């Protein structure tokens, strides 16, 4: 008898049937996953004169440029966020075995999140306009810079008519898209939803802006060692770009077409800090803890079912500690059976796409029963009392298991997602 049977689950069961990604450590989901298991860093010094005088001269740029994969004419009408999303979405669709499958378009939805949307189009077009005048502003500019460009283009590609959404919650966006997709299926609005997140804002302005907030690591001489969640030497996060997309559908729909199921999207917990600061995490981790608890309740699970947490842990001095406390608070004594990891140590922080790529990492960890390591953890902070996976991947036990994916964003947004083995 599985955990969901015990709770007499009256709601539709939702499962993940396809994954796709383009990230700093791989141009596909499988290559990204292999790189994560191997402890590979995707952080590199930025090429180009524009980066030289910045306070931070490195970031996690994608491993494979979209221009290597997309048709040129298509790509020139897409902002980089939409380019990433299209690459990842097409891969996820094929991975779900949906190529040449006729879905009912009115039962197909999209929720692809972003933190800032088409910022590169906006900034680059402004440069062009100042140099060459208004006449040279492309008629495609607006559809390219609008934050919903990625979701909308994916919606058109796959003819999704049950609703196309772009949740925005800063660094929690990519997880909120999963929460939204889950609700779309449970509420009966859709049978299949393409969920995910995308971000592409590696450019002098966002780099300078995050640096001005003292949020970014300044380890310019050793970029691949800069993202070091929970390590005493951490000094801020590393900006990343990329996209991750998952196909989620109702269990019944997946079963009827014989789809391979990676894991169940068991529950989501979404809370907000409502505290004093827009950007400082609540040091008690209260909002984060409530989100994790809510996700478990929504999943019909208890802390005893949890074996793994993919932490938000961005490598900031305060954030990593606050979350560690929240994880302990939520899981109580069950913490002894839980291993934690931060894949941001390798991918950097993909902002609006982080929650999505980390959902893929959790789904594959459950499916393959192994958790990728956290790299650069040379000297763990004394205030962190968690079993963090380092070195080689950690095996997960047999039997039904639940894992959590945490994502927290500027603005006090907390999203915890609970996934369960099938």
């Amino acid at each position, binding site marked *: 008898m599985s955990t969901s049977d015990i709770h007499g689950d009256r709601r539709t069961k939702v499962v993940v049937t396809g994954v796709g990604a383009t990230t700093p450590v791989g141009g596909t989901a499988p290559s990204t996953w292999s790189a994560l298991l191997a402890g590979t860093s995707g952080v590199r010094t930025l090429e180009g004169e524009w980066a030289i005088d910045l306070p931070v001269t490195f970031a996690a740029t994608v491993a494979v440029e979209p221009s290597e994969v997309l*048709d*040129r*004419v298509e790509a*020139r009408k897409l902002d980089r966020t939409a380019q990433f999303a299209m690459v990842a979405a097409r891969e996820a669709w094929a991975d779900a075995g949906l190529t040449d499958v006729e879905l009912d378009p009115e039962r197909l939805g999209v929720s692809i999140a972003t933190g800032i949307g088409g910022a590169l189009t906006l900034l680059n077009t402004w440069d062009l306009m100042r140099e060459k005048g208004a*006449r*040279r502003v*492309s*008629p*495609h500019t607006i559809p390219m810079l609008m934050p919903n460009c990625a979701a909308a283009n994916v919606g058109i590609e796959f003819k999704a008519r049950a609703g196309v959404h772009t949740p925005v919650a800063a660094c929690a966006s990519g997880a909120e898209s999963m929460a939204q997709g889950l609700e779309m299926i449970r509420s009966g609005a859709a049978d299949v939803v393409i969920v995910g997140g995308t971000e592409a804002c590696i450019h002098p302005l966002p780099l300078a802006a995050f640096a001005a907030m003292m949020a970014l690591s300044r380890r310019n001489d050793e970029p691949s060692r800069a993202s070091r969640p929970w390590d005493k030497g951490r000094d801020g996060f590393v900006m990343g770009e990329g996209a991750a997309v998952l196909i989620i559908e109702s269990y019944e729909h997946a079963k009827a077409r014989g789809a391979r199921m990676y894991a169940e999207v068991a529950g989501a917990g979404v809370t907000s800090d409502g505290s004093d600061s827009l950007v400082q995490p609540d040091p008690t981790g209260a909002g984060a803890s409530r989100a994790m608890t809510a996700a478990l309740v929504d999943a019909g699970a208890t802390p005893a079912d949890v074996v793994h947490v993919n932490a938000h842990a961005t490598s900031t001095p305060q954030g990593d500690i606050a979350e560690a406390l929240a994880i302990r608070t939520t899981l109580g004594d069950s913490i002894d059976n839980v291993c934690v990891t931060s894949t941001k140590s390798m991918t950097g922080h993909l902002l609006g796409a982080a929650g999505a790529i980390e959902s893929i990492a959790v789904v594959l960890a459950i499916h393959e029963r192994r958790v990728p390591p956290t790299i650069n953890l040379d000297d763990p902070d004394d205030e962190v009392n968690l079993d963090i996976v380092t070195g080689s991947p950690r095996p997960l036990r047999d039997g039904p298991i639940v894992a959590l994916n945490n994502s927290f964003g500027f603005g006090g947004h907390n999203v915890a997602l609970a996934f369960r083995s099938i």
Partner: protein
Amino acid sequence: MAQSEQEILSGLAEIVNEITGVAAADVQSDKSFTDDLDIDSLSMVEVVVAAEEKFGVKIPDDEVKNLRTVGDAVSFIAKAGA
């Protein structure tokens, strides 16, 4: 600088190919931009602006609707640049 209609045609074919992917060889004088070459209105604006830059001419927005075929555009550019 005056250019021959042939030079304008091949320059325009390059622009259309760059912006829409339509093969340069398909951009012939008798072809309609919308009906034969399947170029949508937003891309047409891009083609016009690129042509202005390439040939050093001005193509007013209200003139664009009169440029139905490739040949219409070539003649207009040739006259405007003369």
